[in-house]
């Protein structure tokens, strides 16, 4: 699926508002607005997902929580969160049959061998072959270790977290999973977290 094929963009008034806000942000923040237009769009998805997303009310963060950077990157302890639903071979798989989405999480140690991780995220919303070929595509743990070796970041945190992205009923995610992950990173004195959607 090539990026940004969607030409016809029929949207509800609400998302037009979002788009305007976004454009304001982009014109202020971005050097390459034209390129950004080529990111994937909801219209790239299969019909079933498009119809669902048109009707779905996303949770909007108001106000947007925003913590300042703690220390320069070469001194920072960095952790990852992926929604790619990876797990260690000995961990229980994610359950795709849970209505509203399986909002459990798996802790992945920094020393994990990415090639041994199982992937439970099966969705026709995206092409999984790239991620299956190279887990770094959605869980860039090897890249992070390389950045640590070069001194670009201070340290790779001792543990990282994996969740399954396709959660439509967000109650338990917000009430249990997100706080559990945040508490773990707080306890580890993590300085920065990178989240990757899949």
């Amino acid at each position: 699926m090539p990026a940004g094929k969607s030409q016809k963009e029929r949207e509800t008034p609400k998302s037009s508002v979002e788009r305007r806000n976004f454009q304001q942000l982009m014109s202020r923040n971005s050097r390459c607005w034209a390129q950004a237009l080529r990111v994937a769009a909801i219209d790239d998805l299969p019909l079933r997902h498009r119809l669902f997303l048109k009707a779905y009310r996303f949770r909007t963060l108001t106000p947007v929580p925003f913590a300042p950077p703690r220390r320069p990157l070469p001194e920072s302890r960095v952790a990852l969160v992926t929604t790619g639903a990876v797990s260690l071979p000995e961990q229980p798989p994610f359950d795709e049959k849970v209505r509203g989405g399986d909002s459990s999480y798996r802790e992945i140690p920094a020393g994990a061998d990415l090639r041994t991780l199982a992937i439970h995220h099966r969705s026709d919303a995206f092409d999984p072959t790239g991620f299956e070929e190279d887990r770094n595509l959605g869980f860039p743990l090897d890249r992070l270790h390389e950045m640590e070796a070069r001194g670009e970041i201070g340290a790779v945190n001792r543990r990282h977290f994996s969740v399954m992205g396709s959660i439509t009923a967000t109650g338990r995610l917000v009430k249990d999973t997100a706080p559990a992950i945040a508490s773990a990173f707080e306890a580890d004195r993590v300085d920065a977290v990178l989240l990757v959607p899949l």
Partner: protein
Amino acid sequence: MCHQTVGLIAAEIERRGVPTTSLSVCREITAAVKTPRALLVPYPFGYPLGRPGDRELQTSLLRSALALLYEAGPPPVLGATSEGVKAL
């Protein structure tokens, strides 16, 4: 949906005083959720770091995403990159 999941987990981590950054292939959802920081990348769903096995591209995307941590607010802070577009 995964972009909303990213935003909601990021929010809880930010509330504890730990800054977060993220990648996004879908600006519509990232903008709707108002994820605190996100690098918008020009790739299809399932390819947030561009291309399997491309260490150089993946590393440069990570650098750009992490650089957003040092961008002044107010949030949401969005960045964009055209890196690797021609190669795909």
